[in-house]
């Protein structure tokens, strides 16, 4: 008996996430999805549309607006052998559950001397770019990447949107998945048998030799566009997608930087104290004598995100900013 050959299927990032959830729910009946409006409403971004009908109310579980309680309940359920996927609508609301994430999810295993593992996956939408203003536009991945005990992933491609979830659920420890809000409508094709992918390694999304552009999540598109523009200007940029923000895949970044001798980190977070600072610090620490120029960073301007489009654009990393930063390193 031979398997039918995989065909390519046109799909979107949103559908890829949904398919990942559906697949996980089918594979393992310990898995369930819990969060605000994941059921009847279909998910605030439509990700879980149709899943309630397929899996029922127990496993597609609408919660009240009680972020701390339902995230903590996910931790408790994980302690007792379930494999919850907790959806926090957006990273902006996750602060209300941060105590549970930091002080329980990330800490219980170590603090209990190895007794209590928390096999929990938390998914949340992150990022700006849709004129949602100051309280709905944060990029706080860097904060979560600061917490020992967590694994943080940021699927930037359809393949990763489809494949990271199952791997995360197979991890015995808590994993947070950041989905950038501007990606849900991204279209592309996936093989019909697309499945789990590793969540340990960064990926080179474009090979190049003059400068390494390091990024993740929502700014991968911007960065690839910048690389194209740089190519037109005779600068051959390599683009590294971090994919996993904690633990960082230093080796992949350094391997690239040691070849190109130049690096730019692109990060939608506010510049000071963003993940880009950590990446920059690590590059300098570990490859100082390989560097031909300062490591540059392209980040969001440090302001609460304004509503008006021209102001939001001015606050967010743009292709031209990345190009300019790269040119500063090769200049």
């Amino acid at each position, binding site marked *: 008996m031979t398997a039918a050959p995989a065909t390519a299927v046109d799909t979107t990032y949103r559908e890829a996430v949904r398919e990942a959830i559906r697949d996980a729910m089918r594979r393992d009946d310990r898995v369930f999805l819990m969060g*605000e*409006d994941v*059921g*009847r*409403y*279909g998910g*605030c971004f439509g990700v879980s549309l149709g899943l309630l009908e397929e899996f029922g109310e127990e496993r597609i579980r*609408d*919660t*009240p*607006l*009680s*972020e*701390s*309680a339902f995230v903590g309940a996910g931790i408790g359920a994980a302690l007792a052998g379930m494999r919850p996927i907790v959806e926090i609508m957006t990273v*902006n*609301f996750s602060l*209300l559950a941060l105590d549970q994430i930091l002080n329980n999810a990330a800490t219980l295993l170590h603090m209990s001397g190895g007794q209590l593992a928390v096999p929990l996956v938390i998914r949340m939408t992150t990022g700006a770019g*849709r*004129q*949602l*203003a*100051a*309280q*709905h536009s944060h990029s706080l991945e860097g904060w979560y990447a600061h917490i020992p005990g967590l694994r943080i992933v940021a699927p930037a491609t359809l393949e990763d949107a489809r494949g990271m979830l199952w791997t995360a659920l197979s991890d015995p420890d808590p994993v947070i998945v950041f989905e950038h809000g501007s990606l849900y409508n991204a279209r592309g094709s996936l093989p019909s048998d697309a499945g789990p992918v590793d969540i340990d390694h960064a990926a080179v999304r474009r090979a190049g030799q003059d400068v390494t552009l390091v990024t993740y999540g929502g700014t991968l598109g911007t960065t690839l566009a910048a690389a194209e523009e740089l190519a037109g200007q005779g600068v051959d940029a390599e683009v590294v997608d971090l994919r996993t923000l904690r633990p960082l895949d230093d080796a992949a970044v350094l391997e690239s930087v040691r070849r190109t001798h130049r690096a730019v980190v692109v990060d939608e977070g506010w510049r000071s104290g963003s993940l880009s600072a950590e990446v920059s610090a690590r590059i300098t620490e570990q490859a100082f004598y390989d560097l031909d120029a300062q490591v540059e960073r392209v980040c969001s*301007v*440090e*302001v*609460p995100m*304004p*509503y*008006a*489009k*021209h*102001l939001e654009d*001015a*606050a967010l990393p743009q292709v031209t900013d990345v190009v300019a930063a790269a040119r500063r390193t090769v200049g």
Partner: protein
Amino acid sequence: MTGRGLLHEMLRVRRFEERCVELYSAERIRGFLHLYIGEEAVAVGLMSALEPTDPVVSTYREHGHALARGVPMDAVMAEMFGRVTGCSRGRGGSMHLFDASRRFYGGNAIVAGGLPLAVGLALAARMQGRPEVVACFFGDGAVAEGEFHECLNLAALWRLPVLFCCENNLYAMGTAIARAQAETDLALRAASYGIVAWPVDGMDVLAVREAAHRAADSVRSGGGPCFLEMRTYRFRAHSMYDPERYRDKAEVQEWRRRDPITLLTDRLRAEDSLGDGDLDDLEKEVATEIDAAVAAAEGAPLEPAEDLTRFVHSDPVRTP
């Protein structure tokens, strides 16, 4: 405010919201847009009972609150357009309308995030000996948040002058109240903190106004916080992205029969306080105001991008 005045205010909100829908389709307004259609009696009745010096704390579904509070329509519309003439210089958009001069403290997009501010505004009023009532709006969904509990307890414990204005429209996005609250009688929930609380027909602007007067009087005279559960309904989707899979068309239809504007119109007609051409006149007046607001917004300038970082901190004090 006369019955006619209340009707005028409700019409201003209704037609403003309807125009916003059009402007959203035309991509003049972007981001999230939460309409107040169906709930006009709440904001209009409530605000009519407040003093101009009373602080107001609002939510992301606050166009109606802002307009009824007296924030000029021009400034609100310009805000939706992202113009510097907007009431938040175009930085806030639909969810973040502010007007310090009218003590309108916005526009908060974190559910229940405004409640602690209201408690603090009330504390300040008390410490400064000002006889203010802080009106704090929030929805049924907010009642499940921890902050709701902390704030009701604190306000009750300290007997602070907060008027909690709960807009119970039966849904938090797609989640019906019975699927979110173990105790769906929200006035009862508030009463469990020892707060005077009662339910009000939120479709009847006169009932809201009367309740608001009674509650505000009690709060202002030092009786501690009050809680009004205004039972209302949103006729439209939660936001522009909501296909409304979670409720029946029939249910919406049923509530539309209690449209607050129709209810008041009928009542005023029955009382003979609204003449034949009066409604038309009001409609015209409102349309003119909205047209002007849209025109002004269209023509208004954007904030220069160089000012992006302005107001992250206060402007340095200029010593003369």
